[in-house]
């Protein structure tokens, strides 16, 4: 810490004296062996004053040292330390084998607690990586059975006849011929079965091993959904609404003349207003349970306990309170999707009343569930 004060012809600064004397704990021992400093100090009044100041300062430090414990306190402390020493017991030595076993158990527990959930989350469809999502989208789903005349169009836009074994991928479109007599049927084993009446058209918004979201553009489509496994979702978009399956099988029907209706025969279906199948659940309009019919027509929404197999209501559409809708196409054409066995719901939207812009068409206040 001792430093050489080189500019002796000039006066050392106060900080230098401070450090120099400080290194000698405030004493003038710092000047021992420094005849140049001693000589300078003797001849320089200003430096003498400075050194006096510094020495006073160090004297102040010494006098200011805090007092220690009194004898009484020290005896008390002795007693406490003796008690402390008496209470101590040497911890038992743990055999090495036990130590290894405990370490192994701790490592195993860590794996189960942290690593396994991480691996599970990696395979969770909701947390899949972008590459995994792309791979799943490219893979699509395989049809096992196709009955009737169903055409599909891939990314190239060319319509081709769908055959059993063809893969359905995200973005594909399906349609049944308008002049076909019997409904066409497409079966994806383990996932869903679609029945398209003549002239029905739908778009596969998302189809992969986990998710299946369809948009019914026109006509009538009957959907039978197998039991959903954890992470799987199935939903049908139509005219600004989204029907999300809470159970296993359902039917959606959307007809031009009958508005929108959802009929559930088994399980439950959640209805909310959304145009994006991946959008987070918006405020649920209603949950239609088995044996109930939800209907939205002429700007009014209703929920009936009476199960109706298929909505054929001749509800006259009015434009007084337009319901939300997403695309003009669905507003122009009737859409129907139906589900036969376990869960069924039918949705009918009066196409004339569909607004063209979703943002400008929030759900009407009158669209609260009401007994019809």
């Amino acid at each position: 810490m001792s430093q050489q004060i080189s500019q002796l012809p000039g006066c050392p600064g106060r900080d230098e004296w401070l450090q120099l004397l400080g290194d000698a704990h405030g004493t003038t021992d710092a000047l021992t062996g420094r005849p140049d400093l001693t000589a300078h100090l003797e001849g320089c009044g200003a430096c003498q004053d400075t050194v006096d100041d510094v020495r006073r300062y160090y004297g102040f430090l010494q006098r200011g040292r805090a007092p220690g414990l009194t004898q009484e306190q020290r005896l008390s402390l002795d007693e406490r330390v003796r008690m402390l020493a008496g209470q101590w017991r040497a911890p038992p030595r743990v055999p090495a084998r036990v130590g290894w076993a405990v370490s192994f158990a701790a490592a195993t527990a860590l794996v189960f607690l942290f690593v396994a959930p991480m691996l599970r989350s990696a395979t969770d469809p909701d947390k899949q990586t972008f590459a995994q999502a792309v791979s799943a989208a490219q893979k699509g789903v395989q049809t096992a059975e196709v009955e009737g005349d169903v055409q599909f169009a891939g990314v190239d836009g060319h319509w081709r006849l769908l055959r059993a074994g063809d893969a359905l991928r995200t973005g594909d479109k399906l349609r049944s011929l308008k002049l076909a007599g019997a409904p066409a049927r497409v079966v994806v084993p383990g996932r869903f079965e679609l029945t398209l009446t003549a002239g029905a058209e739908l778009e596969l918004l998302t189809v992969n091993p986990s998710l299946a979201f369809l948009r019914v553009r026109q006509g009538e489509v009957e959907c039978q959904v197998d039991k959903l496994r954890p992470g799987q979702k199935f939903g049908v978009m139509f005219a600004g609404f989204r029907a999300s399956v809470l159970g296993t099988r359902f039917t959606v029907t959307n007809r031009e003349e009958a508005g929108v209706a959802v009929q559930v025969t088994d399980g439950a279906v959640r209805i909310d207003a959304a145009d994006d199948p991946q959008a987070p659940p918006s405020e649920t309009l209603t949950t239609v349970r088995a044996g109930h019919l939800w209907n939205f027509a002429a700007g009014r929404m209703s929920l009936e306990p009476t199960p109706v197999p298929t909505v054929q209501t001749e509800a006259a559409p009015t434009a007084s309170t337009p319901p939300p809708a997403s695309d003009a196409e669905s507003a122009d054409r009737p859409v129907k999707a139906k589900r036969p066995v376990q869960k069924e719901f039918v949705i009918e939207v009066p196409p004339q009343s569909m607004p063209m812009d979703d943002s400008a068409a929030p759900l009407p206040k009158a669209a609260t569930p009401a007994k019809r």
Partner: protein
Amino acid sequence: MISAVQDLNDDKTQADAVDVALVQAYQRGNGNALTELYRRHGRRVESIARNIVGPSSELEDIVQDVFIELQRALYRFRGDARFTTWLHRIAVNVALQYLRRGRRKGFLRWVGIEKAETSQLHAGESRLEARDTCRQLYDILGKLPEKKLTVFALYELEGMSLDEIAAALGIGVNTVKSRLFHARKDVFETARLRGVLPPHALQVVR
């Protein structure tokens, strides 16, 4: 001179060996070894603590806590470092913990000086003067950042060497020098501004 230094080093080595033997005895289950360690180092621990926290009424508790910490840690002591260095480190850490707490309840800190031993007062100084000087110094030190305060107190008040401070705090010697340099300037400036260095305060310094 050289032989004196040699004797001193021998004494240090012998003291270290005794400390290690006591620690080993304690590790084998001899509780009296802790009492002996307290007897040997209790005053030093107390001194370190009081120079960091000031005249605190909690000084007794601080020393006790240091030895509680020491008791817990003794089982892990392997003799890689000197026992005293290790003990100083514990003492500084415990004292700093109290200091942080004490800054939140500073009104308790000046109780201890009332019970100070008379022998600790400087010649010609009344208890009131001693108390005032002490209060002024620790008022000034209380404004120092913790790192500067620790180095300053250990060097200027406790008289530890730079190497000892570096080992006790786990920092480099140059860092100690730097902190000490700035702490000296800060304390000196504050002392002058507060007028605690009147001309009549000049005393014979050792």
